[in-house]
């Protein structure tokens, strides 16, 4: 273990934290991924809305696209023109944000136009003020991921054998998958259905009955970012940041070649400790808040 290796490990963890948080907020502003089905259903059950409908695949493929595009630009600048690494990452992230803007606008236009029979209008002001904030978050995500890829390939020794676009693609899929499984619940479960009782779950009857009105006026996607930035975003960041940090940490502290057994044992310990903590959290939440008042025993499926 050396100080430089540990510093790089901490930097990668910090970058991953920021990337995870911004990734989740970006998907929440656009109502992408899992909560998107409810936004899509809302108009179909008679609730047209003013919420952005950014249907660009799931989060893993779309983030893989932004990160791969950012890394391709960085790769071209570094390999072709020997540009400074940081500048290359900035240029790459800017290109990724532009790609994201185009895809987001086309998804909003397409999905809204395909619901014409349910009277879902296209609001141009939503495109004008929501798309830039989606692009801004995508910029942050792809910048952080590109920097992680650059650190792995150009800074750390031994250099990672893969070229950075491939590493960007893999990190993009990872950050998207973690954002989809951690942060989306906060938006889809808590924000879209604010008035349901704790423990009720999402009844089929409630499908599409999302909250469309805000404290004042109609709810828009920027309100959702305000809400999700308080808990869902940071949680996703923590999830992704810890994944990257702890995994790097165990191979930095223990030499992966001579002390492989310790590194593997440490990995198993992390998995075990987190599972036990999860179990404790679930039990204590059930004790404190449960059961749901309308609970009448388990129904045989």
């Amino acid at each position, binding site marked *: 273990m050396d100080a430089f290796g540990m510093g790089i490990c901490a930097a990668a963890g910090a970058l991953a934290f920021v990337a995870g948080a911004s990734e989740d907020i970006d998907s929440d502003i656009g109502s992408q991924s899992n909560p998107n089905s409810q936004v899509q259903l809302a108009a179909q059950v008679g609730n*047209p809305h003013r919420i952005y409908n950014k249907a660009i695949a799931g989060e893993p493929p779309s983030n893989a*696209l932004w990160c791969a595009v950012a890394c391709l630009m960085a790769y071209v600048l570094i390999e072709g023109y020997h540009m400074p690494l940081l500048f290359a990452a900035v240029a790459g992230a800017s*290109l990724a944000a532009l790609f994201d803007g185009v895809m987001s606008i086309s*998804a909003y236009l397409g*999905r809204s*136009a395909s*619901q*014409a029979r349910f009277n879902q*209008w296209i609001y141009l002001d939503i495109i004008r003020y929501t798309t830039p904030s989606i692009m801004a978050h995508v910029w942050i995500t792809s910048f952080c991921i590109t920097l992680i890829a650059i650190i792995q390939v150009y800074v750390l020794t031994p250099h990672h054998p893969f070229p950075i676009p491939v590493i960007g693609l893999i990190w993009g899929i990872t950050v998207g998958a973690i954002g989809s499984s951690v942060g989306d619940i906060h938006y889809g479960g808590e924000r879209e259905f604010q008035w349901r009782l704790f423990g009720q779950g999402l009844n089929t009857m409630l499908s599409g009955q999302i909250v469309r009105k805000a404290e004042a006026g109609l709810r828009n996607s920027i309100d959702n970012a305000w809400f999700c930035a308080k808990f869902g975003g940071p949680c996703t960041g923590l999830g992704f940041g810890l994944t990257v940090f702890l995994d790097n940490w165990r191979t930095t502290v223990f030499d992966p070649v001579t002390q492989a057994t310790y590194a593997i044992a440490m990995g198993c310990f992390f998995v075990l400790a987190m599972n036990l903590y999860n179990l404790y959290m679930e039990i204590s939440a059930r004790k404190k808040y449960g059961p749901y008042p309308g609970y009448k025993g388990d129904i045989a499926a």
Partner: protein
Amino acid sequence: MDQLKGFKLEPKQLRMYGIIGSVVGIYLTVGLNAMTGTKVFSFIGCIAALFAVLWGANSIRRICSYGLGTGVPAMGMLCTGMACVAAVFGLNIAGRFGFEIAGPIITLVYAMVFGYVVGTLCNKVMKFNIPIMEEGLMDGSGACTMAVLAWSVSLSGSLSYNEIIATVYNTGFLAVIFILGGMALFHPFNANLGPDEKQDRTLIDGMMVGGLAMFGLGICSIVTIGFAPAMLTIVVGFALWYYFFVWYFRLAKRDAAAVVGTGLLPPSAL
């Protein structure tokens, strides 16, 4: 507002456009590059890919109309995955026989057979029971393979297996082709999903993403074929993207219930 005229194309028509457009485009790229001894005509490869995208986006649209809401990206990824394997396989086999020029044909035939087999497995073994699964996956796999091959040819400027491995696979640009190509195929139907989806709007969206992919791959080709030919790809890609984006916007305006600058919910929903 002036009434925008749409179009309606049959799957068989689109298949013919896709096969002829992409194969002719690939040969044109390689032939013109070889004749002039430059890489200037590499941008034609990306235009050839647009025909394949048109064909593939329609096949995804047909399969996924059977209620595969969340399966749309999965279907696109499946086709792109098959395409990445098929493209290498076809080029390698052609190279081993010392007949590199037949690469696209071998690749196309292999990809379509591959797609048909996977489609049969889905229907017969996994019991998807989607009537056009075999045909749809055959089209999807064939189209995606031709698109991946055309983009690879435009990045390397030739059909040589070794050169494509060196410029597309070893540089990692395959990752970009994989994800951008997949997007061009499945994003159109995914973005236009809904009961009022129209074929012309979906396909124009596909062309728009194809133009965007051309722009992105133009940037990649700066390090593979040189600055001047790459700039040609970038400029043509941007022009195509802009043209199709404006067209797509007009089609969305045509189909939407209303397009308003700002406003509250429709009176019926307040």
